[in-house]
């Protein structure tokens, strides 16, 4: 199945090789989808542990610690790398 992926916030440009939509296994869990996104990043880049995770507009926690959920076809996974900046 396919899900939408939006990686935004700090370092968004590292996601340019993450396909959107992203092909994931049926019944894919959030943790697995995050790992699939991470595999598509440049070799020297990683998602920050503090990156916020949201599915279908619902914040689930961070990459380090989030509520688990099963994704559905067409769901949107949003990864918001922490931003400060003034």
């Amino acid at each position, binding site marked *: 199945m396919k899900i939408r992926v939006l990686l935004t916030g700090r370092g*968004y440009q590292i996601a340019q090789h993450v396909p959107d939509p992203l092909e994931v296994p049926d019944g894919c869990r959030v943790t697995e989808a995050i790992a699939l996104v991470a595999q598509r990043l440049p070799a020297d880049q990683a998602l920050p542990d503090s990156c916020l995770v949201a599915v279908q507009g619902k914040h689930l926690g961070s990459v380090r610690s989030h509520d688990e959920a099963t994704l559905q076809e067409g769901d949107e996974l949003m990864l918001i790398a922490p931003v400060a900046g*003034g």
Partner: protein
Amino acid sequence: MTEDEATDTLSPRERERYDRQMGPGVLTAEGQEKLKSATALVTRTGGMGGPAALMLTMAGVGRVIIAHGGELISPDLNRQILGSEPLLGKPRALYFAAYLRSMNRYVEVEDIDHEPDDEEAKELAERSDIVLSCPPTMEERLRLNRAASEARVPFLDAAQWGMTGTLAVMKPGETACLQCLYPEEPPFEELFPVVGAISSAMGSLAALEAIKILSGSGQPMWNRMLTYDGYHGQIRTSDLRRDPHCGCCSSMPSAREGS
């Protein structure tokens, strides 16, 4: 300022000033008077806090407190709209406050020429009705979040990186707080990239939420984070998760329980 203008009632001149923002779909006269009687703390007042403070001042928030240390430098001028070429090398807070005062004679502007520490942040939050968090470091943001939580005043966190920005709207004891999102302080990047158009947009959106909350108008984005990804041209909102083990707010009773 006339005697009328020193009260919470709107004078005829103030009604004239705010004429375009009072009416259907915007603020009521009562809402405008609530703004006049309100105090907003904005720290800092650079790319985001500057436009936020300017919009609050122009909208007629009665007292605007700004905090920002240091002197204006050339790289600030791609986004810090309260600055200008003649102010290079001059202290930001003092001159930014002067500019704000020049934009609305009916508003009191208080300037603080440094970043508040824990104790001062708490004192400032306690005499404010809302806190707008716009600093460049997560350390300062989390400090302001704690101060707003202890003072039980709404907390708006506006942040940006590059061409993206976020805005979170929080109410202590009822919504997630910033520490629910970031229980551990993320690493700080001193020379973050920034395009002034995004920081200005996020600051203005934070001001709009503050105006709605303070005046009782519209529907504030309580417990939501707006994400504006200007690079990809995408806008989203997310419902925030309150951390039941949050070191800042988990022991805080809700407003209903506490009342």
